[in-house]
């Protein structure tokens, strides 16, 4: 009967659309990453370019505070060596963070930065940071890691304090590789 073949043909087409749309959901992942890359949103793991104006604005003082957190299920301790700095906008500064693995196995972690106020993020230029790569810590290992940054002098005048906060998260896949499993 032709009606039955018609129905089956349409079923095939519609089911194909459903399968394609399932794939489309996954295709949104690279698409999203590309859009973020092109528009410059969400660049966590790359060094920033120096600000156009590198002249330190010695007429202004900024308080930069440093914060450190450890995500769930990561047996590490993590803290900034200096908790705050007073600098001029445009002045190159370096601080050190200290991280230690208290477990008896190698673990891979990734630090994710965030900023307070969030608006300050675009003016916070990190030239060197341990957050650009994953950190694999051996059992009992203690590591001191630098962050080199400049705060763009374009930072609006009403911001007097900027907080840089990192959270270390465990990276399961890399941890398994590090353990050689």
């Amino acid at each position, binding site marked *: 009967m032709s*009606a039955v073949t*018609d*129905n089956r043909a*349409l*079923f095939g087409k*519609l*089911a194909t*659309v*459903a*399968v394609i*749309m*399932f*794939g*489309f*959901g*996954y295709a*949104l*992942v690279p698409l*999203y990453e590309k859009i*973020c890359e092109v*528009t410059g*949103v*969400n660049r*966590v*793991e790359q060094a920033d370019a120096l600000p156009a104006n590198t002249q330190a604005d010695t007429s202004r003082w900024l308080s930069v505070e440093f914060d450190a957190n450890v*995500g*769930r299920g990561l047996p590490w301790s993590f803290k900034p060596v200096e908790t705050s700095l007073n600098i001029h906008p445009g002045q190159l500064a370096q601080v050190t963070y200290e991280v230690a693995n208290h477990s008896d196995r190698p673990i891979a*972690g*990734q630090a*994710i930065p965030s900023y307070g106020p*969030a608006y300050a993020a675009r003016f916070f230029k990190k030239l060197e940071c341990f957050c650009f790569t994953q950190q694999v810590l051996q059992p009992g290992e203690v590591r001191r890691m630098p962050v080199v940054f400049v705060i763009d002098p374009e930072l609006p005048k009403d911001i007097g304090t900027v907080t840089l906060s990192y959270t*270390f*998260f*465990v*990276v*399961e*896949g890399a941890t*398994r590789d590090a353990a050689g499993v």
Partner: protein
Amino acid sequence: MEAVHHLDHGHEHHPAGIMRWVTTTNHKDIGTLYLWFSFAMFMVGGVMALVIRAELFQPGLQIVQPEFFNQMTTLHGLIMVFGAIMPAFVGFANWQIPMMIGAPDMAFPRMNNWSFWLLPPAALLLVISLFVPGGAAAAGWTLYPPLTVQMGMGMDLTIFAVHILGMSSIMGSINIVTTVLNLRAPGMTLMKMPLFVWTWLITAYLLIAVMPVLAGAVTMTLTDRHFGTHFFNAAGGGDPVLFQHIFWFFGHPEVYIIILPGFGVVSQIIPAFSRKPLFGYASMVYATASIAILSFIVWAHHMYTVGMPVAGQLFFMFATMLIAVPTGVKVFNWLATMWKGSLTFEAPMLFALGFIFLFTTGGLTGIVLSIVPLDVQVHDTYYVVAHFHYTMVAGALFSAFGAVYFWLPKWTGKMYDEKLGKLHFWLSFIFFNLTFFVQHFLGLAGMPRRIPDYALQFAEFNAISSVGAFGFGLTQLLFFYIVLKCIRSGEKAPARPWEGADTLEWTLPSPAPYHSFETPPVVK
């Protein structure tokens, strides 16, 4: 037309008792199953809503702990959307579409059986998840990471439930599209189809396009949880905001999936009780299609506050406002249909009018929310809760009640009690507004949603809202009684109980015979 049972027909020898319902491939049986299932889930989700409102009756924590409160808000949303509203409209589609286009049954009767019987296991998974260690999913119905990546096994059960519900919806939709495109009676051209059929055709296409995207999103959550992927895990280079984009790419069309069949129902009821043909039929069809197409490019208005570029916010703001145009076309067409009509106000008409009035209110707050600077202020407050309950409850649910009263005589062969039906409407209308209208004020004053406790200045409006919610809940027991009374002792209904109703199903006797239109009618 009284010859209901052709004994020589193989399909008539169906098993009796429970197995009749388990093995049935009849579109009317399956429609009935969908509707009862939907009502059961409506009660379950309703009880959860009442737990939420009981806790919010007073400030402070009285009845439940915050963890359980979060589980209630999550399950209430999931169960009402996927368990109550969507199956209700699939139930109407099953009953009505074949009768309205003059087809003998759905195109794939066995798959139809599967579409329904996938639902109870999915619902069971959601309910069981309350009793596993860690409790049910508590991240809100939108299932945002990172919470969903951290939760206990209740989350896995929810993910599987969503998978199963998605499969059921996709199968049901393929069935509907095939039925509508291939099984129409001779002469029933696309542009002669009743609007309910049109809205379902478009809805079914939307479902086929976006349910797989939701399936993908929850699959990514599942692999993030157990298989070391990092789609949404910032540590591995993923991004929780990505989930919101994928989810709302599904979620916004989903909103129209819920409301479009309601538009269809109202477009059947209003002409019938105005005794005039629908005003602007073709524009209604095109408006429905435009709403469906636009629904794909507005998703990020649910997430203005994630930190997207201003250009993005502006695009989604204007695209969202654009949807008011086809929606306005619909509302004005309904009003024009009633203009100079001979109106009567039976229960279906009352619910349709309540729908137009309250849904438009919800649409108006939707326009307000589409404005970026304003949305940033009321994001995640009770203003949003009020907005979407005006569209989901007073919109989708009221149109579903209207549909039940409208077609109940055709399904059961008996009339419901008109007085009680009207009482059901007025009580629902009053208690609904009592519950949700005050939530606009709460939201504008800054009360956040999904939180079990609140500051003292919100106490009065919350008390009013809770009283309204309990009134609304109890009123729905009256609805249950009205339907039971109609089935048991309703007066005999004529084939066409509504004077102005002119679609094909009313040419069949009431109750509609088990097999209808085995010989297709000819539509002129």
